[in-house]
């Protein structure tokens, strides 16, 4: 094991963390502002990936594909909010869980009906493929590095949006006191649609970016959705800062655990059983991390009251 391998895996963890942040940011914003738990967030991730794959297929342009993923997911999110979600704000969590689970069924089967069950492929464009040399002699895929940079840029943009702009003020006010901000003349339902579409667009972008590494297929959003839940539970629901911290923690734990646990077990076990025991434990590691954090802080690292 060399330090180059370790650094490479840290970068991989960072990349997974950035993708999870794009998912978790939307989820946590929607929960923080509207008090809504949205299981169908993974469907928006899938919509983004499929839109990107379709547009890349027609035009051959990766940039257009990314723009399409943002637009399609934002449009699907806005539509979802206008037709279904806004009826759920005043309902209890059970109704929200069920209605958004129903949306998953509709979106997944609808996509399967439109595109078929076979996975689509979205290629990394030539100008982003191949490795790049980093200081310290590490060869790292340029595309993954780009994902990390895009994630960092969006995180910075999101913090600026929330801390510095008029919309950000309204979002924070909406989290603090819904009635008061409505009384002050802000069109609260328009704000809700906007926040929901913003979260959807981020999820769609994440889907498109990951779609170029993995395959684009129905149900691709669900494993990511559950990881994003773990992220926001760890970070504290409603907190963007918590989402970033949680995403990095989960991304690192998952990646490093998957690589190094089998090697660690091999120190005191025979190689075959070390590989399987290590893989089993690694697959559970982030949930163990979540349980440990909840034992200490039941409402997450940055959570106030739930």
């Amino acid at each position, binding site marked *: 094991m060399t330090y180059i391998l370790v650094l490479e895996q840290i970068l991989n963890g960072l990349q997974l963390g950035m993708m999870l942040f794009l998912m978790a940011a939307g989820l946590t914003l929607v929960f923080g502002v509207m008090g809504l738990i949205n299981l169908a967030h993974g469907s928006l991730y899938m919509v983004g990936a499929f839109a990107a794959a379709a547009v890349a297929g027609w035009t051959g342009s990766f940039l257009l594909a990314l723009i399409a993923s943002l637009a399609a997911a934002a449009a699907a999110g806005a539509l979802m909010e206008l037709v279904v979600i806004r009826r759920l704000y005043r309902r209890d969590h059970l*109704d929200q*869980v069920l209605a958004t689970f129903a949306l998953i069924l509709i979106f997944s*089967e*609808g996509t399967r009906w439109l595109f078929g069950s076979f996975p689509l492929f979205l290629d990394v464009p030539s100008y982003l493929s191949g490795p790049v040399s980093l200081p310290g002699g590490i060869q790292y895929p340029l595309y993954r590095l780009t994902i990390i940079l895009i994630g960092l840029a969006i995180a910075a943009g999101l913090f600026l949006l929330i801390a510095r702009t008029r919309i950000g003020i309204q979002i924070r006010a909406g989290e603090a006191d819904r009635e008061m901000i409505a009384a002050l003349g802000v069109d609260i339902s328009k704000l809700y649609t906007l926040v929901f579409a913003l979260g959807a667009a981020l999820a769609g972008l994440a889907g498109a970016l990951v779609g170029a590494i993995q395959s684009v297929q129905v149900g691709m959003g669900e494993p990511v959705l559950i990881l994003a839940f773990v992220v926001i*539970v760890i970070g504290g629901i409603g907190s963007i800062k918590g989402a970033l911290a949680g995403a990095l923690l989960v991304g690192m734990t998952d990646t490093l655990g998957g690589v190094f646990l089998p090697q660690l077990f091999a120190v005191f076990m025979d190689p075959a059983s070390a590989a399987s025991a290590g893989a089993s434990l690694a697959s559970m590691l982030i949930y163990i991390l979540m349980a440990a954090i*909840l034992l200490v802080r*039941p409402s997450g690292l940055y959570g106030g009251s739930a």
Partner: protein
Amino acid sequence: MMLTRESLLNWAMIAALLVVPLAAWSLDEPFIITLATKAAILALAGVGLNIALGLGGLISLGHAAFFGIGGYAMGILAAHAQNYEPLFEWPFLFEGSNQMPLIWLVAVVFSALAALVIGALSLRTSGVYFIMITLAFGQMLYYFAISWSAYGGEDGLSIWVRNEFPGLNTLDPIQFFAIAYVILCLALVFAARLARSPFGLALAAARQNEDRVQAVGLTPFVLRLTAFVISGAITGLAGALFADLNRFVSPTMLSWHTSGEIMIFVILGGVGRLYGPVAGAALYILLEHLLGGISDYWQIFLGVLLLLIVLFARGGLIGALAGREKAHG
């Protein structure tokens, strides 16, 4: 007992679930018997969830964990029995088992233990955290089962011959149905008595007003954890039966879609209604069978139906047929 419209409907449903397979048996239609068996087993899983969800107000999105543990209890015991490989040799030699009563016992004990651990951790939180954490723990077991290559990993475990029950031929569909049906009836009686017991009343009170329950000297955490364990154990028993019905267990039983489906049975029938899961599971099997014949994409219709029920008909099927629920204490 006063016969309300709801209790009449309940009797009609439980009778229909018996009459349909009996009629199918006399007409020699084993497939319909199997569908009815599946409905009874899934209803049992729903009865389990309903104790946590309807009575305790605990929105668990991780009940697939217990369903799957029950399934794997059956799979592991039966796999060892059929291969004559000892499961453990200390403190005594144990080569698995193909006897249903022992399998059920193991399924119930292990799913109750899992529910104790998951519940003790998850119930430290409430509301939306609870939903997500139960979901995450369920997913943890799902990924664990996938990576656990000793018992089939992603491919699951197949059992060649259905396990045995003393005095019955379980390979005969109608006899296996009888087993599932009797267990479902026992679980319904148990759930009804539980709801009226001092424990059930205290649990319902903890759902409605936590502070007052605390003020009279009860601990909501303990009430909820007990309910969660009972709920998990019943769902685990259903999992063992379900695996025996298919003679197959795989990580799919642990996936969060299964949790969602068990919840759908409860909701389609009507939340908090004792017989809601029976109505819901029967309706689900019926829809799967009828719509599945029309289109491969039948889950779109299921999704739309579920959405309409949640948005506009919150009482579910029983609510629509029997009217508003009477005020309950």
